[in-house]
């Protein structure tokens, strides 16, 4: 039986004037896969992410999610199609409590705009939100303001928010950036557990090689906007092109 394709990117190009940030990139991601997207700074990873997520209009190329073209779709439309994401920078609601952040991450998927106005204050999500913060082991911080948490805890909260609406595909932009070793192990273990329990597909941009090699099932390496290698983590480690362009001796 053929595995279902969740994300399909074809001939994606993004030019900023004469600079080709992304140049003819094509790849597919299958259901349940954890794909790593690595490459040196300026290789086009974040631009590619932003083109997939509709935050930048690509110069050419197509993006399909679950077989449907998402050309022109805005970020909230993609989220409703089951696409979650985290950001490179901390991206929580600092003056809202941890539980409020999580409820916010799920409430737009419950009912219509008008039923939300006349419905329950928590959109009936307190139980699910508590389960989610327990899953990411943030239960003891339930009522703390998100802005008062440590950097690593905010990264965990950020990830928890991306999962609250039960997405089929999650794009994680440098989830390990600035996170200490203990928290990193924690985050990796949670992501792998979530992937196994729910079959959720991940695409991860990351510079931390240890993290990405132990988390991902397949890796794509970008350099100067083009794919220079693709394969299993052990193959990427041994690839001479990748060593020359990114990993170094």
């Amino acid at each position, binding site marked *: 039986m053929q595995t279902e394709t969740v994300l399909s990117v074809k001939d994606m190009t993004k030019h900023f004037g004469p600079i080709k940030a992304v140049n003819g990139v094509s790849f597919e991601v299958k259901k349940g896969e954890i794909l790593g997207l690595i490459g040196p700074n300026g290789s086009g990873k974040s631009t590619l992410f932003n083109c997939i997520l509709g935050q930048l209009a690509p110069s050419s190329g197509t993006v399909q999610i679950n077989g449907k073209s998402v050309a022109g779709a805005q970020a*909230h439309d993609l989220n409703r199609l089951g696409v979650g994401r985290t950001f490179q920078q901390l991206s929580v609601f600092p003056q809202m409590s941890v539980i409020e952040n999580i409820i916010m991450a799920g409430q737009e998927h419950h009912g219509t705009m008008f039923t939300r106005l006349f419905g329950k204050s928590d959109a009936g999500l307190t139980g699910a939100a508590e389960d989610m913060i327990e899953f990411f082991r943030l239960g003891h911080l339930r009522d703390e303001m998100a802005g008062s948490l440590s950097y690593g805890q905010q990264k965990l909260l950020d990830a928890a928010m991306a999962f609250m609406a039960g997405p089929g595909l999650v794009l994680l932009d440098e989830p390990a950036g600035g996170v200490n070793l203990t928290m990193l192990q924690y985050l990796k273990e949670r992501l792998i557990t979530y992937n196994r329990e729910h079959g959720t597909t991940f695409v991860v941009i990351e510079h931390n090689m240890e993290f990405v090699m132990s988390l991902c099932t397949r890796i794509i390496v970008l350099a100067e906007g083009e794919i220079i290698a693709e394969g299993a983590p052990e193959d990427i480690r041994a690839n001479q092109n990748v060593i020359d362009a990114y990993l170094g001796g």
Partner: protein
Amino acid sequence: MTAFRILFLITFSVALLFAPIGQSNYIIYILCSWLIFSISAMGLNLTLGYAGQISLAQAAFMGIGAYVTALLTMAGMHWLVAVFCSISATFLIGLALGYPALRVQHHFLAFVTLAFNALVFLVLRNEEWLTGGSLGLVGIPRPVFGPFDTMKQLPFYYFTVVCFLVTAGAMAWMLHSPWGRAFKALRENPIRANSLGLNTTRMTLLAFAIGSSMAGLAGALQAPLVQFIEPGSFTLILSLKILLMVIVGGSGYFFGPILGAALVVLLPEMLRFTDGYYLIIYALLVLVVMIFSPQGLLGLGRKLLIAMKPRKERGDLKQGAQL
């Protein structure tokens, strides 16, 4: 809702009922003004304090609401029809004014809304055939509801109290619903909110439209209260005054604009015994509040409460301190 809040709301409502008893017509007029400006400031608090969109056009919306109500009631329509038209007109115009907020933010947006306020003033002053020009409109009738005539000051006060309580109740309802959380998310991190499925375009426009329609309602009450309106009453100075109410009271706090309106409307009157010095004292008080509590009076109160409250030690912080 906590027992403290219920007790506070009951006390506040009872105080509103008894406040005008034995007072002169002038004091009752000032109390009505406070309630009307509270409604307008609550609208701006939604746009600015909760949704994070600056607007310097609140006076213009009060003006539109006041003129629509004045023209319709003077043409013989009942106030209820007129207020519906005022709220609808300001809602739709607010929706249109919200579009620039989708492209520009902060001081740029402040200038766009400021320009709109100037435009409305010019239309009210120059279109004499409709608005009476600089002379304004005189003899605006007060509403009559069967046997309840608001022509006298005291009945008009109670009529204003009812409008205020209904508006505050509706506002509290909305802010307590998922909409309130969505507005806050829009203020704190619109890009993140959008990535979580929130249609930020729609919420930004709604924040403007609802905030503006509340100014429209305030205008629809202002017209029969004063029974005379003219364009000079709805200039940028008034928009700045309403902004001051929100900021001084506490932007993003439910009771902030009500407290702020009390400070801006009632305090100058209470300081009149100081003769010519009252405006100086008032200005100094506002300066002191802003310097020592940029989050407004309620922000200061919250800080004090947090400082006084015994805090549970957070396990993760204790663990971190031992590293």
